[in-house]
């Protein structure tokens, strides 16, 4: 896929040059897709999200990093309302994420999520995992749903496993299936919650490759990860969270090489020493 696009673009030498240096130049950032304004959330008395403000535009790739327990998962899970928040507002493509069932439906149709532990449905084949939501929720004809599913399975290089069950696949394969499943409803926004941290080291690469491919195609993405290579390669912005707060927000270059806050400096030192 990536090769195809680059050969197409090669016809205009200037564009090739730009796309190699900065894929974003081909997909300029568009209208705001996700807006968090003064979001606060508590678990009982525990203030888990403190005044979160974040805007993500169309085509933007945002990477979120931070120590364990800092609220990264909680924040992105508020965006598709796997978690509720108590104060502030979250909008997805201008739709308020709140108790309204209609809004929730629209939001979930637009936002897809990939989990740390894949969460494939073990009683269904790979293909059935992919067609479940399109057929039942989005009322696609079965044939069309299968075609779409096979398209995305090919995209993540796993079409030959379509009729197997999830537990017959390796972790890396399962996570690629999970990504394909998320893509099947053609979401505008992808949320990744530590998609590679449950994987054996030799499988991380295959999953990151798929994610890079998506990033280069201009998908809007928020990714919680500690894969700094990935962040450097595709992120427009990197966000550092600590103790329920966004502490620092910068372009990857500054974030990694000239961190401003002390907490981020400490954090980077810790993860780089590993």
């Amino acid at each position, binding site marked *: 896929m990536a090769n195809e696009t680059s050969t197409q673009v090669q016809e205009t030498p200037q564009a090739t040059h730009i796309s190699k240096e900065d894929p974003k130049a081909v997909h300029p950032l568009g209208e705001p897709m996700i807006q968090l304004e003064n979001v606060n959330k508590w678990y009982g008395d525990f203030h888990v999200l403190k005044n979160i403000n974040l805007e993500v535009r169309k085509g933007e790739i945002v990477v979120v990093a931070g120590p364990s327990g800092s609220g990264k998962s909680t924040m992105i899970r508020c965006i*598709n309302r*796997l978690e509720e928040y108590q104060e502030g507002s979250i909008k997805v493509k201008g739709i308020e994420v709140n108790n309204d069932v209609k809004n929730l*439906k629209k939001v*979930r*149709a637009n*936002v*897809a*999520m990939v*989990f740390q*532990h894949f*969460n*494939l*449905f*073990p*009683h269904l084949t790979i293909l059935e995992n992919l067609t*479940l*939501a399109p057929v*039942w*929720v*989005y009322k696609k004809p079965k044939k069309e749903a299968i075609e779409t599913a096979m398209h995305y399975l090919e995209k993540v290089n796993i079409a030959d496993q379509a009729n197997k*069950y999830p*537990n*017959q696949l390796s972790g890396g394969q399962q996570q690629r299936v999970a990504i394909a*499943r*998320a893509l099947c*409803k053609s979401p505008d926004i992808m949320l990744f919650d530590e998609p590679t941290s449950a994987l054996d080291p030799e499988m991380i690469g295959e999953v990151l490759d798929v994610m890079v491919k998506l990033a280069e195609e201009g998908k809007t993405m928020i990714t919680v990860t500690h894969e700094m290579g990935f962040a450097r390669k595709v992120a427009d912005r990197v966000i550092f969270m600590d103790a329920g707060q966004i502490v620092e927000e910068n372009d990857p270059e500054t974030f990694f090489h000239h961190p401003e806050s002390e907490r981020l400096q400490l954090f980077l030192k810790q993860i780089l020493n590993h």
Partner: protein
Amino acid sequence: MAVYPPQPAKEPPLTARGPIAWIRHNLLSSPYNIAFTILGLAILYWTVPPFIKWAIIDAHFAGDSKSACTGGGACWVFIKEKLDMFLFGFYPHDQLWRPKSVFAAVLALGAFAKFVPGLHRLKLTLIVLFPVFAYLMLHGGHFGLPLVETSKWGGLLLTLVIASVGIVLSFPIGILLALGRQSKLPIIKSLSVFYIEFVRGVPLITVLFMASVVLPLFFPEGVNFDKLARALIGITFFEAAYVAENIRSGFQAIPKGQYEAADALGLGYWQKMALVILPQAIKVTIPNLVGTFISLFKDTSLVMIIGLFDLLAMVNVTANDRDWLGMDTEGYVFVAFIFWIFTFSMSMYSKRLEKRLDTNNK
């Protein structure tokens, strides 16, 4: 340093495999084990040969009256002569072709569903229509079939009717109760909890009495509410509480991530439950469910208490026949055997089903 060549796999030594090793390991591994082995053999020696002698070697199979049975062996002539009673109770003799054809239809339907591939629509339709067919056939009163009151149904027929209706109806009700117990709405949740805990705290006999005495109070005077229907309602609602608890234990085996993935994909509550959660919950709970259904099958014999004559009750009825006095033993052994055949096949079937549904390590 050194490099080691790959080693070919060898067979284990003879002492570790074969029947002798098996006996040594499983029967004679320690003094206790040896003692239990001897005890077990002794029990088998004292019980099995005498039973075989009674039930087969000395038994009487030929003849048509009690006088054919002389000496000590079992008198299977009794079972042979009373077979229709054991199978169908007091169902009128000239109408016996009706329950027989229902039995035959069950077998035919089962064979069709198992051996003919595909045709799922047709199979489903037939299965859904079957109870209607069975009811019309057995009860009659339409299409020129003479009416046979349910009070005349009995024996294995009645046992199977009660057990299958109980199983089929308690299943969906149990699922709803289990969902209710998980519900976020406090009223639905506490109602379900109260119902489940109440029913589980009460013996089936009580439920049957209540169904037979209390239920009619809810109906206007003069409405004669069928005794069998009352028993069926009682048993169904009793069983539903147990099914609900089984399924709840299944829910607990489902990781939170499954709910979240379903939510994130946009599935609504009922879609999530029906397509993602329940199939997995039911799958892990099949052994328990079948256990529940097996005990329901055996518990059907309690309907005797409210005056229905199931398979077990037929032993009393037939052995009280003046011509066959004292045949209780044969009756009970025969009935036990029938019960065993059904419960054993159920548990075999559940094993097969479990294997077939196991997608975890295919």
